[in-house]
C-alpha cells in the first residue's frame, strides 16, 4: 500500500516538473505586466493585441505554410517510397532503410549546417523555398517509418484478388491498399506536421533574412524578454493540440469498444 502511494507521489512530482513551465507560460499570458516574473493582475489584453501584431502573425503564417507544404509533400513521397521499400529484396530494403535513418540519427545542427553549405554552394537564395526543402528532407523518413509497418501487416493476397477481379493496378491501389494503410499515412503526416511546426534548429540555418518561423521569432526575442503576446499564442496552440489529442484519443477508445462488441 505504501509502495503504491510512493509511486503515485513520484509520478506526480515528475509530471509537476514537466508541466510547471507550461502552466507558468499560460499564467503569464494573463499577467498584466510587460515583463513576466511578477504577478500584476489578470488581463486578456495580450490575446486581443496578439491578432493585431503584424510580425507575430506573419511568422505564424510562415510556420503554418511551411508545415503544411512540407508535410503534404513528405507524406506523398514517403508513402510512395514506403510502398516501394516494402516490395524490395532484403538487400535493397536494408540500403533504403539505412538511408532513411541518416536524417533521424543526425543531430539537427548537422542537418542545418550541411543544408546551409549545400544551398550556399549552389548560390540558392535562402528563404521560403530552402526552408520548405529542408523540412521535407527531415520529414520523409518519419512518414516512411509510420507507413511501412502498416504495409507489412497487409495481406498480400488482397491486392492480387483485386487485380484478378479486373481492377487496374491504380484502382487496386486507391480502392484496396490505400484505405488499409490510411492510419499509418495519417500518423506519418501528423508527425511530419508537428515536427515542422516545432522545428527551430534546422530552420535557423536554412532560412534567409525576412522569413522567420515562430520558433525563430521566439529565439530572437529570448534575449530581451519574450512578449506576453507570444505566451498568449502558445497557450492557444497548446489548447488546440490538447483538444486534437483528446479527440483522437476518444475516437480510439470508441473504435476499440466497437471492435470489442463485434
Amino acid at each position: 500500500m505504501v509502495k503504491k502511494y510512493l509511486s503515485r507521489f513520484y509520478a506526480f512530482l515528475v509530471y509537476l516538473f514537466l508541466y510547471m513551465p507550461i502552466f507558468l507560460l499560460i499564467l503569464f499570458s494573463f499577467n498584466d505586466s510587460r515583463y513576466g516574473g511578477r504577478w500584476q493582475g489578470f488581463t486578456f489584453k495580450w490575446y486581443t493585441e496578439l491578432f493585431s501584431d503584424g510580425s507575430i502573425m506573419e511568422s505564424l503564417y510562415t510556420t503554418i505554410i511551411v508545415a503544411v507544404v512540407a508535410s503534404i509533400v513528405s507524406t506523398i513521397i514517403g508513402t510512395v517510397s514506403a510502398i516501394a521499400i516494402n516490395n524490395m529484396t532484403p538487400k535493397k530494403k536494408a540500403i533504403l532503410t539505412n538511408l532513411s535513418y541518416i536524417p533521424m540519427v543526425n543531430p539537427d545542427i548537422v542537418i542545418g549546417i550541411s543544408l546551409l553549405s549545400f544551398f550556399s554552394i549552389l548560390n540558392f537564395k535562402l528563404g521560403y523555398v530552402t526552408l520548405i526543402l529542408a523540412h521535407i528532407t527531415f520529414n520523409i523518413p518519419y512518414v516512411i517509418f509510420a507507413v511501412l509497418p502498416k504495409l507489412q501487416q497487409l495481406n498480400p493476397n488482397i491486392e492480387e484478388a483485386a487485380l484478378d477481379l479486373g481492377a487496374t493496378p491504380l484502382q487496386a491501389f486507391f480502392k484496396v491498399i490505400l484505405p488499409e494503410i490510411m492510419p499509418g499515412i495519417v500518423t506519418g503526416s501528423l508527425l511530419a506536421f508537428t515536427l515542422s511546426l516545432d522545428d527551430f534548429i534546422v530552420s535557423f540555418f536554412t532560412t534567409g533574412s525576412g522569413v522567420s518561423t515562430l520558433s525563430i521569432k521566439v529565439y530572437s526575442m529570448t534575449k530581451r524578454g519574450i512578449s506576453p503576446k507570444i505566451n498568449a499564442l502558445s497557450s492557444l496552440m497548446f489548447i488546440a493540440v490538447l483538444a486534437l489529442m483528446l479527440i483522437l484519443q476518444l475516437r480510439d477508445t470508441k473504435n476499440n469498444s466497437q471492435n470489442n462488441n463485434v
Partner: protein
Amino acid sequence: MNKKNILAVPYVLWAILFTIVPLFIVLLYSFTKRDSFGGMIFSFTFDNYKMFFEPIYLNVLWRSLRLSLYSTIACFVIGYPMAYIISKSDIKKQSLMIMLFVLPLWTNFLLRTYAWMVVLREQGALNEILLFLGIIDEPLQMLYTNGAVIMGMVYNFLPFMVLPIYSVLSKIDKSLLEAAQDLGANSFSTFIKVIFPLSFPGVASGILMVFMPAISTFVISDLLGGGQTILLGNLIQNQFMMARNWQFGSAISMIMMVMIVISMGYLTKHSSKEGGTGLW
C-alpha cells in the same frame, strides 16, 4: 525487376541531393582551406582538425561531454522508475500517462526552455518561493550556471528516455516474472535478474536519444547557460553564423558525428546482445 522499385526513385534522388551531398560538402569543407572572405580554397589540409585540439576547444569538448553525460544519467535515474511505474499501472491509465509525456513535446521547445529562464532567474519564481519560505536569505544565482543547463537538458529530453524504456517494459512476457517468482526470487531479485536485463534495449535507445540532442544542443546552453557555457553546438553555430569559419565549423561537426556513430555502434552491439530487438 519489380516495377514498384521505380516508386522509390523520387525519394532516393531526394535523399542523395539533400542528405548525402550536403554531408559530403561538410566533409569537404572540413579538409579545405579558407580564403580571407570565408570562401573555400581547394587545397587539402588537416588544419581545421588540428585547431580543434587547442586547449580552449578541448575544454569545450570536455564540458559538452560532461554536461551531456550528467544529463543522460539524470534522465535515466528519473526516467527509469517513471517508465516502470507507468508499465505497472492499469492498462487504461497507461495510455493517458504516456500521452501526458508526449504532450509537452507539442509545445514550442524554445518557449518551454524560456519558461525556465523565468523560473530560475534572480528575481524569478523559484528564488521568490525559497526566500518566502525562509530557506535562503538572498537570491541564489541559478540561471547561467552549468546546473541550469543540465536541468534544461533533463527537462527537454526526459520523455526520450521514458518512452523507449516504457515500450520495452510493457512488452515483457508476464510469465517470465511468474516463473522467477515460482523459482523463489523475491521482487527485488526478479527486478535485478529478469526485468532490468530485459529492458536493456530500451535503456540503450533512451540513452542515445538523450545523449545525442544533449551533445549537439546550442539553444539550451545559449538560453540557460547565458554565453558562459559554450558547448560543441554553440561552437558550431558560432563558426557558421558569426565567425564565418565554415571550415572549422565543419570539422567540429564531423568530430561530433564520429563520436555519435561510435556511441551508437557500441550501444547497438550491447543492446542486441542482451535483448535481441534492434535499437530503433
